[in-house]
């Protein structure tokens, strides 16, 4: 795959394809102690939208900065469009990056900010002006072209930062937690806008976030990272339905999965709290049971539970139940105005939707 490959689009113009990206055994060390990025392997297809997600300090931002050329690789290979780029500086990699705090040039107006990269790469004043106008059109920035970044709202700054990235038709788009400085409502809007932008201007995109909802909603594929390593790569639904480890299971999904330790034998699963559940898994020995909020239903039989708290969300209600067998568990329920904290009921786990993990390694068992 090569970035010069082009495909015709309906208007007859050639639209450049985004480049592929390969990471091979990528390592970044800042000093003695554990590596910030510890041997990462990743293949990203052209025009794919890949989200790197994980808790703070998991190495996702460092990985992105390595791809951008803002950090030097300690070991391993980064290849863009099949060519190794380890030795190239950020300027030579032809990638665009949207930074967490936007990093707009404060002394340049919106048009100059967007056009800066084009001009530095040798575009003429007229070419740059035309491209900037197009990008501004896409991002609805036309009215703001002569404003300075200091006079823009957070969402507008965000759009300028994106304009600066798309205007160049880069080989890769890199996003470093671009929405974390926005308020919740704007974050939702911008999430949609970024997805729409990707549909309109398809480019290979690496998007870093610590917000698992962002990862789930935006990604073609999600890469879950932990302690400098990749835990799992998969589509959002694969990650949600078949987490490979207890870490992924606990990190993805809101409210979080409930875990309980127990023993699996021929009779089924016996939790340490004494609860017995039927289970068809082949594995024998100690396991950790994981249940998502939708894997528990209210019924006449099952664990005795007392309602602790309700979070009505409109279309559905999240309920926190206290149980002897599992401790506090979140259950996803239809809205029920008669339920009040303090109510008692029985919870029935749906074992076909249960997840089992090795309590020592944290790996999924079947």
């Amino acid at each position, binding site marked *: 795959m090569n970035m010069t490959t082009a495909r015709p689009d309906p208007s007859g113009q050639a639209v450049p394809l985004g480049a592929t990206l390969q990471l091979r055994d990528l390592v970044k060390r800042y000093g003695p102690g554990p590596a910030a990025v510890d041997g990462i392997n990743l293949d990203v297809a052209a025009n794919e939208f890949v989200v790197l997600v994980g808790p703070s300090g998991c190495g996702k931002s460092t990985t992105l900065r390595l791809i951008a050329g*803002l950090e030097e690789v300690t070991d391993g290979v980064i290849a863009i469009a099949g060519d190794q780029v380890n030795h190239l500086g950020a*300027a030579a990699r*032809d990638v665009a*990056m949207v930074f967490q*705090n936007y990093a*707009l*040039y*404060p002394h340049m107006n919106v048009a100059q900010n967007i056009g800066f990269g084009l001009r*530095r790469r040798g575009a003429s004043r007229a070419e740059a002006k035309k491209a900037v106008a197009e990008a501004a059109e896409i991002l609805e920035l036309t009215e703001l072209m002569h404003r300075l970044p200091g006079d823009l709202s957070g969402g507008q700054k965000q759009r300028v930062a994106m304009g600066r990235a798309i205007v160049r038709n880069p080989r890769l788009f890199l996003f470093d937690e671009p929405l974390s400085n926005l308020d919740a409502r704007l974050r939702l809007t911008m999430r949609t806008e970024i997805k729409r932008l990707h549909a309109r201007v398809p480019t290979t995109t690496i998007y870093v976030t610590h917000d698992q909802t962002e990862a789930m909603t935006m990604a073609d594929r999600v890469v879950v990272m932990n302690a400098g390593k990749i835990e799992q790569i998969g589509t959002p639904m694969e990650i949600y339905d078949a987490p490979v480890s207890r870490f992924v299971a606990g990190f993805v999904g809101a409210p979080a999965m409930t875990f309980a330790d127990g023993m699996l034998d021929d009779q089924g699963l016996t939790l340490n709290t004494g609860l017995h559940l039927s289970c068809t898994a082949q594995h024998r020995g100690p396991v950790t049971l994981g249940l998502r909020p939708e894997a528990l239903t209210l019924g006449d039989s099952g664990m005795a539970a007392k309602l602790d708290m309700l979070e009505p969300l409109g279309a559905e209600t999240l309920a926190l139940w206290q149980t002897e067998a599992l401790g506090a568990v979140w259950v996803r329920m239809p809205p029920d105005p008669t339920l009040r904290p303090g109510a008692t009921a029985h919870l029935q786990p749906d074992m076909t939707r249960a997840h089992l993990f090795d309590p020592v390694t944290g790996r999924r068992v079947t």
Partner: protein
Amino acid sequence: MIRDRRVWLWFAPVMLVLGGVYLVPVADVIRFSFSDATLLRPVTGYGLDGYRAAYNDDSLGVVLRNTGLFTLLSVISLQAMGLAIALLLVRGDRRRLYGMGALRTIVLAAWVIPGIANGLIWQMLFSEAPFGAINSTLRLIGLAPVAWLSDPGNAMISAVIANVWQGSAFSMIVFYAARRAVDPVLYEAASVDGASPVAQFIFITIPQMRGALLVNSILVTIQTLNTFDTILALTGGGPGRATEVLSLNIFNRVFYSYDLGGGSALAVLLLAISMALTVIYLLVLMRKGAR
């Protein structure tokens, strides 16, 4: 505005100190400028004779030209040197090179040397006698010695070099602080945008340090205008009047010719120039504050 009159109580100490240290002497200079006082004899009468004599002096044109040239060359070189050292230091800091602290200290050491000592140091370095350090070195590598202080054209350059050597530290501190205040992510964004180091300097560093550059150029200009001790020790204003700047001319007029009235009349001119620059400086500062 605070209406409470007790505010003046709090202002009193600073007003007393400022008044005693600055305003009274300045007022006294203005009073002397209208008098016929000399160092040997108290005031016998007031008038404009002092001004007339001082401003009609044939040497004033040369002195003002020297002052302008000395100030212009010094200010440009001071800023360039200060900026270069500051950027070097920031780069060294970022790469965690050893000896950055030592380098900062060395530059600052030059700054704390008194002007007179600075003049003497450079007089020895520039000396055209056999022990002159620079000429000895030139001879050692087979180059012809240079008339650093005896040639009128070179003497001005030599005075500027001595002044710049001592004064760069001030600009360095201002620029070092300003450069450190630039958000490093701007450089990352610029490098991703394809900007070369030179382009980053032109499009990020310079615009981001514009305020510091403006303020520093005015401060350095005022400092240079008031410099006379280094030149006094280095060349004494010579050869001829080749390096005689206004402040030195005032000093000579008062302490060699004992003409307190005439010296004060020129001091008022120097004060006016400095005041004008200070007003510009304040305007720049206020505009920066308003943004």
